[in-house]
């Protein structure tokens, strides 16, 4: 966002790939924030303070996007001109839909039973499933440039992320 022409990968001096080194991302993020953060410009003229806030905001946005695998894949597709159609395209392979229903049911059951360990176990399962999908993204985006396949995987991951959010919310409600 804002007035910069660098994309998120360029900003952190990283190759525009799905498989990135997260340690390098962390390091470069901190280096960049050390240079542009508003705390470095507290005594500077108003114009510099404004630029600093915009740059630091962009660095945070870029970091948040690249750190999260789903957001990173979505962004990679976007800079390659591919829309992931997450709102409009809800067609999913039948087996994935069945799986998803099973997770939702398992979540409802565990929630009704106030069973936090069961919810935690479910979270773990979803994490494993996400990892498999991420491996697929690496293949589709970095190796094959198979963008429409990658877009479908992003849509699946979005489903998973939503269920995960719901599980996490259920846990924190139960813990209250």
């Amino acid at each position, binding site marked *: 966002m804002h007035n910069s022409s660098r994309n998120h990968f360029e900003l952190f001096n990283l190759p525009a790939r799905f498989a990135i080194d997260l340690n390098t991302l962390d390091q470069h993020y901190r280096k960049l924030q050390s240079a542009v953060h508003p*705390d470095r410009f507290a*005594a500077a003229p108003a114009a510099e303070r404004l630029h600093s806030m915009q740059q630091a905001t962009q660095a945070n946005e870029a970091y948040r996007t690249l750190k999260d695998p789903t957001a990173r894949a979505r962004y990679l597709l976007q800079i390659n001109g591919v829309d992931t159609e997450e709102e409009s395209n809800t067609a999913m392979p039948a087996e994935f839909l069945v799986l998803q229903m099973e997770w939702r049911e398992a979540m409802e059951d565990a929630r009704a039973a106030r069973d936090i360990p069961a919810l935690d176990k479910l979270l773990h399962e979803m994490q494993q499933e996400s990892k498999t999908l991420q491996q697929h993204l690496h293949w589709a985006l970095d190796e094959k440039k198979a963008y429409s396949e990658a877009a479908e995987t992003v849509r699946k991951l979005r489903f998973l992320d939503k269920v995960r959010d719901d599980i996490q919310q259920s846990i924190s409600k139960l813990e209250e």
Partner: protein
Amino acid sequence: MALLQIAEPGMSAAPHQHRLAVGIDLGTTNSLVATVRSGMSTVLHDEHGHALLPSVVRYLPDSQVEVGYVAQAQQSLDSQNTIISVKRLMGRGIHDIPDIGHLPYRFIDAPGMVQVDTRAGIKSPVEISAEILKVLKNRAEKALGGELTGAVITVPAYFDDAQRQATKDAARLAGLTVLRLLNEPTAAAVAYGLDNGAEGVYVVYDLGGGTFDISILRLSKGVFEVLATNGDSALGGDDFDRRIFCWVLEQCKLPPISPQDTRLLLTKAREAKEWLTDHMESRLTGILSNGEVVDLTLTSAVFNELTRPLVGKTLGPTRKALRDAGLTLEDIKGVVMVGGATRMPQIRLAVAEFFQQEPLTNLDPDKVVALGAAIQANVLAGNRSDHDLLLLDVIPLSLGLETMGGLVEKVIPRNATLPVARAQDFTTFKDGQTAMSIHVVQGERELVSDCRSLARFELRGIPPMAAGAARIRVTFQVDADGLLSVSAREQSSGIEANIIVKPSYGLSEDEILNMLHASFASAENDKQARALREAQVEAKRLLEAIHAALEQDGVLLTSAEREQIEQQMHALEALSSADDSHAIQDAVESLNHATEYFASRRMDASVKRALAGKSLNTLEI
């Protein structure tokens, strides 16, 4: 060939100029001020050698104001005019304050923020807090022998926008330049981390007089990155006093008692609580105004039982913060205890049990926040420092918008790293609609009515179009202080509406100016003298900053551009010695404007420099 001197961006290249900057812990029970002297962060004392200033303000009959120990000594006798724990009222409406019936003040239900009717007139919590800040400012200026460049004021991490804005207003009212609002646990982490060379993930458990915060931070090579924060902005040591107080009422079967007696028993309750930190039992005695004698013994076992629910209330937010950070107990390298209330043994025990490790208590829990704030103030003021320090903090509560049916749509999620901005597109829902109202709320709940209302504003002047054709992009920007501003733009016409969120509870610019002027109780020429001084200080600051920038990055300008900037600088310099504050302000404005592209190039250069490690002259311009 002379070597080019390169300073940190935005910092003055002149090493001899030490700017006077302080960190202020504006606490519920006590407040402190600290500064960095000869590289060491130290708390400043008053003339009696006290480090703590009780956060107590008393309005006297002769329009005098007392703050601190003197005011505290009178709190039972003059409870209606002696305000304690004013922090609990900051940015709060009358319905937001629990236990309001127990408080001995004459409250006024003002729109947005509650007010207190004292013998000196109706006072807002902002004005009362400003009295505390003024005393600390004077203390610091006396100790340091000069006017302060600025201050870092700490706030509970879990303070919302309203409470932060109120704190900033109070500082301005006290005549302080706010360099930054800093979250208390982050300040504590700075003091602790730098002192101990800590690396890894740390938890700060901060139970103060009236607020509870939990923050989880990753410390790495001078970067303090907050991963998650949670808390309860209405839970603190005061609540433990109140539990004892209620126990006393029960034990003695007392009827409703007067405000004076309430104050007296609350004070006795606090003393008993403090005594129990090192003893197994405490005697609690006092004589009420009707002559009735209270004489009880409170054992630590009973005290623990009375306060068990309060201790438990701190663990819920702790669990949530851990989850939000995506961490488990094994990831936590240490737990730092902050706030006077963490002296209570039952708290330390509960924390040790929860985290399965002994909490760290080697820093004075009353002082650590102010010490950390002073370190940050020193860095922000542009003083040279041995600490290469960067704080990356987060927004504690989600920001959202009201949608159909009173539901909240989240725009910025809690724990997003600051500064953060999000844009959201809206469209019209009727043909020819030219205005639209937007309601911004803060909180985690799904219903608007369960969240805190931050601002309602109207977007006018939308060109009439068919329903759904207009594209209105609203951008929410939260700055490094955690404060929100909102701007809106109609995409197809480019009509812009800039709104700084100044919600109902905040003070308007005019109100602050009026209060400032009233507090100087001065003639017109005093006001002018002050305006002139402020303009001169601002001009000097700007000239210094641009001078340093030219020295450092002058290579980014063509000689014609540089000449143009220097001309404006000369013009401003010439005006600064004259006495026309408006002319100075105009010149400041135009110099700011003239250096905008320079600022943008410098920023670009520092971005490249940060990652490439290239020297200046190899950069493309």
